[in-house]
Structures are given as C-alpha cells and as structure tokens.
C-alpha cells in the first residue's frame, strides 16, 4: 500500500476542495448538450454538460471520476467555459491544462480525457447551431 506521495499545486488543491460546477445543470432555458470521454485504463472518466442560450454556454457542469488533477481540470474547464461562445475554439487543451495546474507529465493522459470530453461537448453545441430552426406554423 502507498501513502499519498503526489504533490499538488495550490490551484489543484483549491479546485479539488470545492469542485465548482460539479453535478447537474440547474434548470433553465435553452438547449442542453453534453460531451463524455471514458478511459478507465488511463484512470479518468469525464462528462461535461452545457446549456446553450443565444449561441453561448449559459451554464456548464461536469461529472468526473479520476485523480485530483483530473477533477481539478474538469472543474477549471467548467468554470472557464461559462459564458463562452459555442464557436470559440476551446481554450483548454490538455497541455495548457497541465501547465496551468502544474500537473506532472504522467498525468497528461488523464487530461487528454478531459480535453476529449470538452471537445465532444463543443462539437455538439456547434452542430446544434447548424440545425435550422423549424419554421413557426
């Protein structure tokens, strides 16, 4: 058995402690899209949900299983995506997350799972905008 040997940056500790935007979206107007990536062998499972109102992410939430870096990364993404336009290219790829969270290189595989879930959600959000609205009767 192993005692905790990993070191965590203050940002990881703060996000892990609060897990902001974890859980479900609050009820509200607009359409809900999600993105999910599962890689149990890499030690991460992340699902994002966002409410789209006027081509913007009016709200964003996550659910995740994984190490503290994975949970912190998902919380960081969900927090920062709030209010972003659906066509804004994701500001968070795995390498940028790793740098911001000061994650060790061996955690990059898990952060890629966060990236996959985010990109999946954004792709759905974009696709939603391309569907023409039904004409009113």
């Amino acid at each position: 058995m192993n005692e905790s040997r990993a070191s965590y940056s203050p940002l990881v500790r703060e996000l892990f402690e609060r897990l902001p935007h974890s859980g479900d979206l609050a009820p509200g107007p607009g359409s809900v899209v999600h993105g999910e990536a599962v890689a149990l062998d890499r030690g991460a499972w992340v699902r994002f949900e966002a409410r789209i109102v006027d081509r913007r992410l009016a709200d964003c939430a996550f659910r995740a299983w994984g190490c503290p870096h994975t949970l912190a990364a998902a919380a960081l993404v969900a927090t920062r995506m709030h209010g972003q336009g659906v066509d804004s290219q994701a500001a968070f790829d795995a390498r940028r997350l790793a740098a911001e969270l000061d994650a060790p290189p061996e955690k990059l595989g898990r952060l890629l799972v966060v990236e996959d879930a985010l990109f999946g959600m954004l792709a759905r959000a974009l696709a939603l905008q391309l569907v023409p609205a039904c004409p009113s009767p």
Partner: protein
Amino acid sequence: MSDGAPIYLDYAATAPLDPRVADVMSDCLRDPALQGNPASVHAPGRAAAVRVELARGQVARLIGAEPESIVFTSGATESVNLAILGAARAAGNGLRHVVTARTEHRAVLDACRQLEREAFSVSWLAPAGGGSVDPGQVARALRPDTALVSLMHANNETGVIHDIAAVGRLCQERKVTFHVDAAQSAGKLPIDVDEMGAALLSFCAHKLGGPKGVGALYLKHRPRPALQPLQFGGGHERGLRAGSLATHQIVGFGIACELARTGLATESARVRALCERLWSGLQAAAPLARNGAADPSLPGILNVRFPGVEGESLLLALDGRLATSSGSACSSATAEPSYVLRALGLSDLAAQASLRLSLGRETTEEEIDRAALLIAGCVHRLRAALPAGAIEAIA
C-alpha cells in the same frame, strides 16, 4: 498522536514510538556507563553487553524462543533477506527450489527474485479469494529439491492470517527449512516458534512501538538451520550479522517486546473491538466491501474498498486529517494497483478504490468515530461528482 495532528491509522506501516520505550532509549543514550561497544571486553563494553543480552531475552520471550536463538539486524527487511538468501544459498546438496506466496511482502518477493537470478527455482503460490494460502497448496508445491518455504504469518495489507502451524508441521515432516515473516504479527498475536514449526522467523521493533532501524531473526537452536551471512566484518551475532550492535536501539526493541507481550491479550481485544467499530461506522459509506477474509485476521487491519471512488482522490480528500494508505501508487501514470489485492482477484480499479486502515496502541474510540465520519463524508463528496453508472463500472 498530538492534538491537531491527523488521525493516525497507518500502524501497519509503522507504529508511533511508545513513550515508555523512548524514555528507556533516551536514558540509554545519555548513560555514560553504556557508551562502550557491546563487543568490547572493558567495563563500559561489558555494561552495554549486559543491556543487549537483557534485551535479547525480552525479544526472545515475545516469540517463545531462547535468547541465543535471536540475531539482531537492522529491521525485518534485513532479517527476511538473511533468512531467505542465507538459507537457500547454504542449503547445498542440489536443493535449489523455494516455495513462497504472491502476497508476501516485497522483501520476500524481491529476495526470492534474486534467488531466481541465481538459478534457483521459485514456486509462487496464489492465495484463495479470502487471501490465505492453504497448507495443501504448500504440500503440492514441495519437491525433493526444495530448500526453503517462506510464508508470512499475517498479511500486511489485509491482515489475513495463514495456518502457519500446519505449514510448519509439513516442513518438519519433509525436512524443509521454514521461514516465517512475522513483521506484522509479532506483538499482536501470540507466537510460539516451536508450535509454528519455524526454523527462521523475522520481525522488527517499529511495528510494535519500538524504534525503527532494528529487527531480529530467530534461528531455531536445535537443529540450527544452515545460514550464509550476507555481510562480513567482525563476527558479531555469531558470525551471522557483522557490525557493531546499536545498544540503545536494541534496548528499545527489548522494552517494546516486553510491553507488547505483557499487554498482548488486552490490547488485541481492544484493537479488534475498535476495528469492528470502524467497520460498523463505515457502513455510512455504503456500498463498500472488505478486502480479505475477516476471520482469522490481525486485530488491527481493515482493508476496505469503496466502489466508484478513486484512491488518490480519496487520499487527498483525507489529507491532513487522516494518515492512512491506499491500494494504488498515486503519482504513477498507470496508478499501479496493489499486487496483494490483485492476487485476491480484485480488478485494478477495485484495488485503487481501497484503503488500508490499521489501528494500534494509541487509537481511541473517539478517533475511530471521527475517522469513520470523515471517510464517509469524503466518499460521499467524491461519489456526488461521479458520472452516472460509475459506481457499478468501478466496483
């Protein structure tokens, strides 16, 4: 532990130094009359030697042995290495086979791997789902060229106890040297080396409230097993372990053994009751499961898995409030799961979702109740953030 310190539930890793032991060691370090080398013939040397021999008797009594059967070492790892490498290399007569189990401590596994590199053959026994190795498995593994059987008395991760006496009888019948790793059980379970049929038995001080850096290897007196030393330089400990004896360490070891022996029955019962109280309190974190058979097991080890919970996250959630061990290596890319839990049939994810909680001398009911609440709270918090289906998928 002191106020404000994390609740300490990692006694299987090491026990805090008993203050009574610390006092005796401190006196020993300060006493001008005890500063000689116990191997020296002058008065200070002889005075130190008297204390060493007193401690040797105390250490021997804990395991029902004679003082002259004890060799002092730097700890259980050295004792195990001396026993396994020393006995196998000394066996001769074409005896090139060793039997052990996959769930042994790393010290045993690595010593046996070293023997494989030296062209010995090793039979690695797999335990049943409950974690114990059946004596029948050992019987089936024995061969005409078997030099040694090495089995732990109680597992360091699950607390599961092996039927050592049955294996000892088997080894005596087949005239095979039997080594017992008793690092976890010494001072916590009654040990009688003759009843166990052990030719060699390893244990150390720091698991039972003594200092780190000192241990013992028991060698059966008659017939004495053949043993090759691992280090040379002075003929100490009857030529089996060269190096000046650390008087204060050995004195501390002796006192720790004496305290453990005299308080064993009451302390074992107290710690076992605390363990059951903890298990009961942890039901608030259901679903959960116990790893390894509950009976027979060491009184102070509870290995629990929490489906859907990631071990590293649980440890960080508990960080600063509870000192314990998880079933995975936290900072590795692959989160290496415990080989002991995997040998019990657990998946990698289930092993990673496990905590080893180990209790001891200073553990109180109040700490146990607080620890159960704390763990349950952290488990609930992490589960509240899980994707749907994760608890079932990561069980």
